[in-house]
């Protein structure tokens, strides 16, 4: 078992099932996604069947089961962003990266995720790349933004 997972698990009392979600959040925060191995470890620690854990994890949008790209693009698809054209923005990004939302590009540089609302509706449409917000984007400006990240990745 990886030491990081042990460290995370030991922050929580063994068998306390109500801590399942925080544990999964910590693991994902650490590894970027939930691997099969780590889910099994969590199951052993909390005395829960793995199927139950997957049942909970797949219910929530936050949890992923495959690694992210170097730059993770979150595209806000909230109402305010929608009325200001976030669908076109998303389509442009998908075209640029070459994969659909919810997956990672083959070179591993970008991954795209649709999110419900990031709470920056006053600046719609908004995207966030690795947590950095880019406000009032459109299909033109988005290309420049992504170009700059691609350059960073190639350095």
């Amino acid at each position: 078992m990886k030491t990081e997972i042990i460290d995370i698990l030991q922050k929580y009392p063994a068998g306390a099932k109500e801590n399942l979600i925080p544990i999964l959040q910590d693991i994902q925060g650490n590894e970027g996604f939930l691997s099969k191995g780590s889910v099994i470890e969590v199951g052993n620690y909390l005395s829960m069947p793995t199927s139950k854990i997957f049942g909970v994890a797949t219910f929530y949008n936050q949890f992923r089961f495959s690694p992210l790209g170097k730059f993770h693009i979150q595209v806000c698809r909230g109402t305010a962003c929608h009325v200001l054209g976030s669908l076109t923005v998303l389509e442009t990004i998908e075209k640029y990266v070459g994969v659909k939302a919810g997956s990672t590009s083959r070179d591993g540089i970008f991954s795209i995720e649709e999110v419900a609302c990031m709470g920056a509706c006053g600046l719609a449409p908004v995207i966030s790349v690795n947590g950095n917000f880019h406000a009032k984007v459109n299909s033109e400006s988005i290309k420049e933004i992504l170009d700059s990240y691609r350059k960073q990745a190639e350095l």
Partner: protein
Amino acid sequence: MSTVKNQYKEFLINEVLRDYSGNSKDKQIHEKISVMKHEVISEPIIYVGAGTCGLGAGAGKTLEVVKSFLKDNNINARIIETGCIGLCAVEPIVDIQLPGYNRLSFQEVTADKVVPILNSMLLSNKIPDDSIILGQIEIPNAEKWNKIAYLNEHPFFAPQKRLVLKNVGIIDPVDINEYIARDGYKSYIKAINLYKPIDICDIIEKSGLRGRGGGGFPTGRKWKFANSEVNDQKYLICNADEGDPGAFMDRAVIEGDPHRLIEGMAIGAYAIGATKAYVYIRAEYPLAIERLEIAIKQAKEFGLIGKNIFGTGVNFEIKIKKGAGAFVCGEETALMNSIEGKRGMPRSRPPFPTTSGLFNKPTVINNVETFSNVSSIIYHGADWFSSTGTQNSKGTKVFALSGKIKLTGLVEIPMGTTIRQILFDIAGGIKNDKKFKAVQIGGPSGGCITEQNLDIQIDYESLIKVGAMMGSGGLVVMDEDNCMVDVAKFFMSFIQKESCGKCIPCREGTKRLLEILESITSKPKPGDNTEALDRFKGVMQIEKLCNVIKDTSLCGLGQTAPNPVLSTLKWFKDEYESHVFDRHCPAGVCQNLKVYKIDVEKCTGCTVCAKKCPVGAIIGTRKSPHFINEDKCIGCGACYEACNFEAIRIV
């Protein structure tokens, strides 16, 4: 807050909080307080609006430039990162307060504009000529700036009444000293010293405060239910799972004034007899979580959270639970399941949470804005609060303005204000002076308000009367370029994705409803003979299906899910009809209904469009006009974007 040991802690605890009446005439106390309120300062203070929206607009870079400017010029000045004052449209907002002067607020201070402003303000005490000033904020006994209007006279702020947002954007959110200096936590100390728990419930009930999260249930009554339960453990939960797309007031309150929320929760917990509280907050709000964590830590240091608070024997502890991105967890019973580590699926009621909620114990759950109202009600009294508002809806409500509006942001207005006042007086009207079409209120559970209903006075009942609902207070403005069928479809696809799947009406009904809307907004498929019939059947049944979902769903999510469809059907029947009968989208939004034509006169035959077309629907030879095969065209618009001669038109 500075990392040095808090020199004011003992003073604040003993002289300010224990004397919660605030009647002390001691001059020294007042002097100290005005230092903490930044009314008397020895060095300039630069406030940078660094909420999520400010940072999105570039406040992070602004902050860096400010720091390096101070360093390069050897200037001693304090930098305070505040929350968002609410005028998101002109972020980043930077305030500068020079010793002895009123605080000046500058708008749109992007990184490139910092140096000229600081140069002239800090080095020569002068207002730079070409900067845009939002206004000045009055500081007692300070000199005012000539010819500069006051911020509270700004058209965006003048009609507002800020109770919940009072400190947001003004104070340092992670400085407990300043919060206490501004009368914070006094209500809590007063409550636990002076009142019995049931008295607090009475005061809140008398004030007329109703839940700000959507339903509008009287808060005091809810607390009374929980208060009357006898159990060894009760819980209090703050619902900060602000999932409604288009609403961000809870985020702003937590980022800008987290102590107000904590104080409200502490009072609530005392009133119902709960010793443990949870804040269930969206993981998408990292900054809010961070500031709340700091605030909780500070409150612990002051003994405001913990055991035997201020020697009264009251215990209170607070835990943060991060949501994991499920909209349905905004529903109270689903939220409780999620805290328990289960799938966030709603439970059937009764039993109600006040009887059997979290871990089957009596639980009260309220949202951020509701709790943030509590401390001022205790401080000023129930009558003071109920003097604002309408007959049945008291106090104020925070609305988040977004969409096609000139000034986007947060406004807090007294109940009873009209929507027209919000949109046109406060927010300056529609962007680019387009024609107003509708405003969507209440997110995926709400409805539309059209021109003819703009003059209704906002309260819980009047909004329901016109087929909308208060919801959490997101106002998304739409103009003539928006298609209402598309908006309905957008909400339905959102709900369909977020439906937890527990009950059939919601799981299957929303799926069918979405299918009907999709068939309305798409072209006939060649060779599919049953499509037209299915589509027709869908149109016939759409309203009935909505009502079935409404009547039979288990929780609030399903019961309100058809509202956007019903409301747009009611007010924009003509738009539905032109989609249904003419397969035409009047606003030109629905992609599948767009028909692209090439203008023979303008086309030069450059073949760019034909190369771009993903389905090979464009035919023609080089240097002669091209044509679009409509049967093949999927309406993606790639040719429209690619054409350099404006030869492609949408008809």
